[in-house]
């Protein structure tokens, strides 16, 4: 097992925001975390990435206990794409992507040839190479999001956590980026956890699904177990239909 999460409760103070979330992901799997606003998707990602002040959970990546690992070794095990796309405006795109290599570089951020190789690769995969010499302050929100995605890919970790990574991207980049993460899962065994609102995208790319409601697991499993009209209707408080397209298996969720 690659990523094991076992949360009794966690949050910003003693009154926990999320509780009773337990799951294990294997190498190469893509977990789509779905649920309405305020259901705890972002808190879950914060909990796993060890930035929550109050946390009674256990987290393991390839057997390493994340709570006992140093910041640096954690950053070699998992990369995080946060929901906020804040990037200091006076850095070059290339410099920001290179910061993904921080856990591998020395105290002064000196990059090796290996670091440069990962940076180039990540910039090509996310299509940011064409503006690598621009200042981040000059970018659009979608471009900034791709820069942060590139930084996370350059980090080259077995686990990738993403919080709404495609919220600012247009349809083409949404599809391209999720295709890319799926390819990385299949070819490199990267385990991906992605919180998303778009159920159709989730249905298209997820191997497993975690549906959250009020801070806890409502349903966990494959598409047949989770993407059911009655389940989704209950989670979102909205009647929905789940349609299988005749083209070979795409699932579409639409409000009734």
């Amino acid at each position: 097992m690659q990523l094991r999460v076992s949360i009794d409760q966690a949050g910003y103070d003693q009154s926990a925001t999320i509780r009773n979330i337990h799951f294990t992901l294997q190498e190469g799997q893509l977990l789509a975390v779905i649920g309405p606003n305020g259901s705890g998707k972002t808190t879950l990602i914060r909990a796993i990435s060890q930035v929550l002040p109050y946390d009674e959970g256990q987290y393991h990546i390839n057997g390493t206990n994340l709570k006992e690992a140093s910041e640096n070794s954690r950053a070699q095990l998992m990369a995080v794409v946060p929901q906020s796309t804040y990037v200091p405006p006076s850095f070059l795109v290339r410099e920001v992507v290179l910061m993904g290599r921080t856990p591998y570089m020395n105290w002064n951020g000196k990059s090796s040839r290996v670091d440069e190789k990962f940076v180039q690769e990540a910039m090509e995969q996310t299509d940011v190479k064409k503006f690598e010499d621009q200042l981040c302050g000059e970018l659009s929100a979608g471009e900034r999001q791709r820069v942060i995605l590139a930084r996370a890919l350059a980090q080259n970790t077995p686990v990738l956590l993403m919080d709404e990574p495609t919220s600012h991207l247009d349809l083409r980049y949404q599809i391209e980026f999720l295709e890319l993460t799926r390819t990385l899962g299949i070819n490199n065994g990267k385990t991906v956890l992605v919180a998303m609102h778009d159920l159709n995208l989730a249905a298209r790319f997820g191997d497993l699904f975690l549906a959250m409601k009020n801070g806890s697991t409502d349903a966990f499993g494959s598409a047949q177990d989770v993407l059911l009209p009655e389940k989704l209707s209950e989670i979102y408080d909205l009647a929905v239909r789940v349609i299988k397209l005749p083209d070979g298996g795409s699932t579409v969720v639409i409000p009734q």
Partner: protein
Amino acid sequence: MHKLTRPTLLSFAALAIAVLLSVGVGSVAIPPKETLEVLWNTLQGTAPTSDINHTYQIILLTLRLPRTILMIMTGAALAGSGCAYQGLFQNPLADPYLIGAASGAGLGAIISLTLGWPASPFSYLAVPMTAFISALLTVFLVFQLAKVKKTLPVTNLILAGVAVSSFVTALTSFLLINASGELRRAVVWLLGGSTMAGWKPVLGQLPYVLVGLIGLSAYAYKLNVLQFGDEQALQLGINVNRARTRIVVFATLSTAAAVAFTGVIGFVGLIIPHILRRVTGGDMRRLLPFSMIGGAIFLVLADVVARVIVAPQELPVGIITSLCGAPFFLFILRRSKEKDW
């Protein structure tokens, strides 16, 4: 990196010119050629070639050179720590005075001046020492107030800094009004004009400034990553609390040393990094060293102006830095069409 060769050469040339100007200007003018000659002779240990050169040598070595070096170190310390604070707080308004270092130092100095400690046997170092200790205590207090469990939120730090600063400044004013001691010296000190003569202040300041600035330079890369905010920095593998605490300690050490030995000099730590960021970009590994050189040049030149503008009297250099600094800063900001002003 080769893109930086020119700015590096230019800034060192500017510093050299500023130094020659600073040691040459005064009641006895010493032309650059003679300055270089005297310095060269002194370095080689040979005797001055003429009487006038001998006079020059005394003026240069006992008065103007130590003062210029004091200005270089103070400017570098203020601009370097200002640069670090701006990066750390992701706030272009941050400067060495934000978290109480300077107001704390001011209080310490005024306490020792109004109590008449300079008259005591260890007179001369009493003001810098109390200023220094009081600066460190004030920053420590700000830290304790801003702390939430084990974390140190930036907003808390700024708010606590502002509150404690104004409290400490009020205390200072109170002491001044009730003062019976050396009121004039105290006021001059608060205006940034407490320039002590000779090599003793230079030697006293040197270790603190060196430790502070070298420490900051060692954390330059971490400062880059910290600008993404605590959460992203943590996720990129930085021990945020440790890095931030050390950066603040080093920056406060530099600030306190600067303030303790030269008085309260404003604006250097604010404008120099701000202006240079437009040249070097945001990478602290470039911005920090350039800010230090830039701060040194600026303060040396400001000191020259302070000495000549109402000669033979001398203005506190803090008045000049604000008087020249503020309009120049506004000019730069108005000219650039950037959004971040």
